[in-house]
Each structure stands twice: as C-alpha cells, then as structure tokens.
C-alpha cells in the first residue's frame, strides 16, 4: 500500500517509554511519517507488558495498548542505558528529521540524550520533548505520571464527591494529551527549522497542558471571580442543570446554557407548575438549590430508558445525551457509518479492531499501513542498511546486550 499521508516525507525516531511519546509517534505515523520506535532489548517498551492481554495472558506482542499505540511504526531494540547504545542513537539521528522523546529528566542516563548530543551530527535536527513539569523549571527533575500530572494541573481536585477522595482522569488521559501536544510542538518546530535553516528543540509540560484545559473552573475562575472551585460530584456548579442524571437503565448527561433548550425540555414534561419556581428564574444561580430542584424532574427521567430519552431529546433539539458504555459506543450505528473502527490483521495476535481516524482528510488520508511491529522486527534494516554495520559488529552488539 502506497503511503499517501501528509507527513510521508518525515523521518522520526521515537525514544522513551509508555503512553505519551508513543501516542505522539502514532499520530505522526498514522499520517504517513516513518517512525522508528527504539525499545529496550528483551522486554521492550513497558506498553508491551501492560495489557490488556487476550484472556489476560501476558505476551509482549499482544498488549492491547501496544497494539493500538504502535500502529505503522518500526521497532528497533537498543539499550540507551549503555554508551554503545547512545552512540548508535546519535549516529541514527544524523539521518532523520525529528526525534520525539519522553525520557525522564534528571536521570543521568537520559540527560546524555538531550538535544545537544543528539544533534551533534545533524544541525537540522528537530527534537520534541514531552516532559511532566517542563524543561527549564524548578521541578524539571521530579518524577511524574499521568496520575500525578492530573493532580498537579488542578483537574483532579474538581472531580468527585466533596466528601470523598478527588479523582483523576482515568486511563492516563493526561498522557494522551501530552502526546497530542508533543506532536504539535514537533510540527511547529519543523516549520521554524525551515525558516531558520537550522534545527531546534521544542518541549511541552503535561501539567501545563492539563492546567490550560481547565478554563473557567481553574485559574481564571479564581482570578476573575474569586471562585475557588470545589468538587460537585455528579453535578457541576456554575449553572443549572449540569449533571449526570439517572434514567431507568443507566445515566444521561443533562446540560444546557441556552434558555430555549431548557424551555423545550420543560415542554416535554407538559409544562409543570414547578417550572415557574423562582429558584429557576436565573439558572446561573440555581445550583445552590439543586437538591430540591432535581426532585422536581428526576422521577420523570427515571421512568424512561436512555434510548427513549435520547430519541425525545434529539427530536426536540435538546443537548442531553445518554452515558453510553464501552460496548454501546463500539456497536453504535453512527460510528459504523463513519467506518470509525479499524480492522487489523496481526501475524501473532490475529484479527482485532482498534479506534480509527481522529480526522478524515479529503486528499491525504489517515491510514494503517501495517500493524504494531514485533519487538526488534526492524533491527536488520536499521543496523545494516541505516547504520552500515556488518555481521560481526552486530554479533558484538548482541553479545554486549546493546540490542
């Protein structure tokens, strides 16, 4: 299959571990870039050991996260904790446009793989680093994960019940955000490189990315309105209604800021008297009485299924939608018509599906050209063709555990 993505001329090395950098690499590779993923010999990226595995039996080629995040990439094993491995990486960087990395800062092994050393033999090199706290900031060397980054950004303090523990955004959502913005920083820096005719380093902080997503409930809400912000559990304060409401067979998200939509909702319930309750006269102030107000209309919702409600709301142009479960979204007719789920055939795993294109390009489409690579699948190509090593040199590397 000919590669026709918009990034087909881009050559990339991916170094680091787990979700954030792998997602940045996937975004680039699915648009046609050649992405060589550098992995630890023997065990590979920790994505391979994380799962979910078919029947829960661990296998380094069968982890679901790996199968999703490493589509279209090439896999090369190289131990970057060794001097020999680092030298080979620097040699490989002479021949690519971009290095993406989420190596932990403050670790001496990783710090020797900074932009300065990687660009030694390639002054047009661009590097994009995904860091937790930032690159030249006081806590740059602090350790972090998606959990601690979400907490550090202010997002977690706003999720959950006020009398219970605050919650993170599950399944490492922050790492996915880091991946998106690391990939953006890479493309921005590639443009800048062409203006300057000289390579450069770019970076993002996952904590800052997450903090920037907070909008009015975070820093600006505090600065401009003195709103400290609490956790409101299944509700959000600010205006009313904004909540997850029980239906007979699950839950529905109920939110509207537009009065016309709220009136159409009231109409659906045959304009009950309580709709004129003065506590609803300004819905920006109503949250204070949400318990009493909820009691007026929750029984009506609870008497109907999610699909009955969804039909009514859609027909009446009311923006309330059902909380679908994972199986329900996978089976949805709309996403089938969008051809969203992508079927993959993998030599070890067999056939399975993955979530598909985040965007549809009319000319240069997103595509899966090959499934996630097996560990070290592209070692021959890398060491022999790219780096020009002969058989005995390669044997030495294997003996030393460098590959």
């Amino acid at each position, binding site marked *: 299959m000919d590669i026709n993505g*918009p*990034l087909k001329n881009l050559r990339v090395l991916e170094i680091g571990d787990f979700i954030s950098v792998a*997602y940045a690499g996937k975004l680039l590779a699915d648009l046609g870039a050649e992405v060589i993923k550098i992995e630890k010999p023997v065990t590979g990226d920790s994505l391979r*050991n994380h*799962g*979910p595995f078919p029947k829960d039996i661990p296998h380094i080629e069968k982890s679901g*996260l790996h199968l999703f995040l490493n589509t279209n990439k090439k896999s090369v094993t190289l131990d970057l904790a060794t001097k020999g491995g680092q030298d080979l990486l620097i040699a490989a960087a002479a021949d690519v446009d971009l290095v993406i990395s989420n190596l932990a800062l403050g670790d001496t092994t990783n710090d020797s793989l900074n932009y300065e050393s990687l660009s030694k033999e390639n002054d047009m090199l661009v590097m994009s680093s995904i860091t937790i706290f*930032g690159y030249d900031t*006081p*806590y740059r060397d602090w*350790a*972090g994960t998606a*959990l*601690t*980054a979400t*907490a*550090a*950004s202010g997002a*977690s303090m706003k999720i959950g019940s006020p009398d219970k*523990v605050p919650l993170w955004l*599950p*399944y490492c959502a922050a790492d*996915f955000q880091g991946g*998106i913005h690391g990939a*953006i*920083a890479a493309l921005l820096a590639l443009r800048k490189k062409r*203006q*300057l005719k000289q390579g450069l*380093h*770019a970076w993002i902080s996952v904590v*800052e990315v997450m*903090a*920037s997503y907070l*909008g*009015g*409930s*975070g*820093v600006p*809400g*505090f600065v*401009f309105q003195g709103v*400290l912000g609490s956790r409101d559990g299944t509700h959000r304060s600010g205006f009313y209604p*904004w909540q*997850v409401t029980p239906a007979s067979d699950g*839950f529905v*998200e109920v*939110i509207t800021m537009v009065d016309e939509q709220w009136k159409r909702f009231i109409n659906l319930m045959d304009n009950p008297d309580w709709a004129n309750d003065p506590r609803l006269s300004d819905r920006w102030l109503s949250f204070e009485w949400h318990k009493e107000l909820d009691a007026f209309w929750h029984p009506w919702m609870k008497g109907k299924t999610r699909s009955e409600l969804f039909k009514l709301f859609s027909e009446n142009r009311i923006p*309330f*939608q059902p*909380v*679908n479960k994972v*199986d329900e*979204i996978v089976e949805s007719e*709309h996403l089938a*018509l*969008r051809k969203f789920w992508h079927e993959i055939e993998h030599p070890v795993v067999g056939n*399975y*599906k993955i979530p598909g294109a985040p965007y549809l*390009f*009319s000319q240069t489409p997103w595509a899966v050209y090959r499934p996630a690579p097996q560990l070290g699948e592209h070692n021959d190509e890398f060491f022999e063709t790219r780096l020009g090593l002969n058989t005995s040199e390669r044997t030495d590397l294997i003996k030393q555990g460098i590959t």
Partner: protein
Amino acid sequence: MATTTDGPLSGIRVIDHGHVWAGPLLGMSFKDMGAEVIKIQSPTGGSGVSMAGKGMAGTATRDAVDVSDPMAYHAFDRGKKSLSLDLQSEDGKEIYKKLVAVSDVVVENFSARVMPSLGLGFDVLTRVNPKIILASLSATGATDGPWRDLVTYGPSLAALYGIKSVLGYHDSDHPQEDQADLDPTAAGHAFFAILAALESRDATGRGQHIDIAQGEACIQRIAEPLMDYFLNGRVAGPQGNRYPATAPHGHYKTSGLDEWISISVRNQDEWEAFRDLALQNSKNITNSKFKTLQSRLDNQNELDQTIESWTKNYTAMQLTKILQKSKIPAYPVMGALDLVNDENLNSLHRTHITVTDDNFSPDSLYRGVIWKLEKGQGEITGPTPSTGAHNGEILLDLLGYEEGEVLEFQRNGII
C-alpha cells in the same frame, strides 16, 4: 523573511469562524504561534453562543466585547483581527470569497450542515483557492448518520462516546462530572491535523478538507478499555483512582483540610524505596500482602488504608518533597488557589499563567502558550478585538475595496 523571534506560523493567514470553545481556542493557537487570524463575526452581534460571563470566565469567546474587561483579554480571541460580515447576503459571500482567495486556512466548528447551506462548502472554497485548507470541527462528523447535526455540548458528547462511563468511583456506577475538556482536546487534534495538511500543501500546492468529529478525536483516550472490549469482550465501568498493573496508585489524605497527595508507584524498585520511607509511621507496610505487584493489586483497600496512616502526618508538599527525593512520582492534589501560587507553573511565566499587561488588568494572570520552542516561541500579542474592529484594514488594504464601497457595505448591514 521570518526572523529568529517570529512565531513558526508567521506568514500564515487563518479565517476563524470559531464559537464557544473548541473553535476559538483553535484560532488562538494559530495566533499565539505567529499566524494572522481573522475572526468572522455577525454585524448584528454574535457568531454563536457566548459562554464568557457568569461562571465560565476564560472558557469561551466573547462576541460583544468590552475591551477593558480582563475576562475578554483572557478569553480565546486574544490578538485576533475581527471582520464583521453578513454571510447570508450575496455581497457578504463575495467579500468572503475574496478573503478565502488570499488565506491559507479556514477553521469552523459549526454543525456540519452550516457551511454548505451558506453556499460556502469546501467545493466552493477550493474553486476560489485550491491551496485552502478547511478544517470543520463538528460534534459527530459530516457523514450522514443518526447523530449528524446533533445538538450537544462537550460534557454530553463525552457521555455519548463512552468516555464518561469510566469516570467515577470504583464502588458505584454513577459517573461523576469532570472538567469537560472535550473541546480543548478536539482543538488540539485539529491543530495537529491542519499543521500536517500544511506540510503536504507546501509540497504539492494543494489544500484539502479535514472533517473532524470531536467525539472521535476524544475517544482515543479510552483506548485501553476499548481494546479490552475488542480483545476480551469486557465492558469497563468506573475505576476510581485505580489503574491496571499499578499499585499503589491514588490520592491519599494529608494533614490539611481537604488536602491530598497523589502517589503513583511504577515498579518494584520504586515500591521498595516507597516502603522504606513509609515504614517510619506505618509498620503494616511491610505486610507480606504488599510484597509483590500482584499481592498489592489483590489487597488494594488495605494497602491504601496503610498508606493513609502514614500520609496524614504530613502536609502534601512536605511529603511530596520526601518522595521526590527518592524519585517516586508524587504531587499535591492542587486546587485553583494552589495553582495560582504554584512555583513550577509560575516559572513557565512566559507561557502558562503568563503576562501582566498594564493596559488591561495589572494584577491578572493569563493562560499562556503551551508549546515551547527554543527559538521563535509563541506569545500573547494583544487583547480581544471588538466586533468589526479591523473591517477597514481588511477590506481596504488586504482586499482592495474602495472607501465608498466599504461605506456602502456598512449602510446595507453587510459588515
């Protein structure tokens, strides 16, 4: 010629139809990184729902703007130019096409039917300018299907696409509300996609249409439970702070009121370092139930209680510093006030909670630019424009209309 300090997008002109959050944020991303961004607004006021104001400061664009209002400066139209234009009128469409002819990118987050129904679909724009890239961010995509043109907000879209079903406490199936970050996530994906399309346009001279369904862009973050469903048929529910193959992983009570520390232990080495630190206050931490990852996962309630009996003796920041000294991922669970005073975020001042502008609000903090480039990095360049503030500049200088024609447009309510 661009210089070292120019943003990487200098020389790119963007037409911005953004309203509410995702669209305006996308336009702002271009502006912050050096592009010229022209926001199209209706001469009668408004390009859609304005969310700024009560309770939503900074999350949205303002259509009728009082530029002395710091919220307006903070909102997502900072530094843009404003052109007021009636796109329903023939003259308005003509002006618009002239603008498309000299632009690089059009971004819009209307429902999928709006641009084609105005006679301004991609087929029309590409005839005017084959190099144009049109990015359409609708909720559910431009394909015919039961959800096309659905009226929705970020939080309800997150529910529809399954994202909300896994957000909540592990002992209840009732999902919790969150930050409603579907809009900025979709804007990020769109920014990346357009930058990629610019790469291919620079190589081929050809623009294209990018159809972005916001729900599809955001669903990727629950790839893990989706893959579990595809591989095993399992349907995940809310997980609390737990995460597969990782323990301890959670938020623990510290000494202050509603004060918590976030701790995530990634491997056995980190566990052993953690255990040795916790041993001071909590003998139970050496219990054989916590010895291996599997045994910690099997006894997570007891593990969490044991850890909390240690963490409650410290403030969140004290304990963070102790754990970080041993390279164990930890950080206080930050509230809004903590964020304003956060040493690390403040050190990103060129960017995150960045500049103070004497002309606007001397003591205010503004959200910064998140992409750092060692050369030519982004910056906040100006306030939110009032509606039509740049009509003259755009119509006379850029599009070459005569002054008389512009006055005529004004009289007829075209601009």
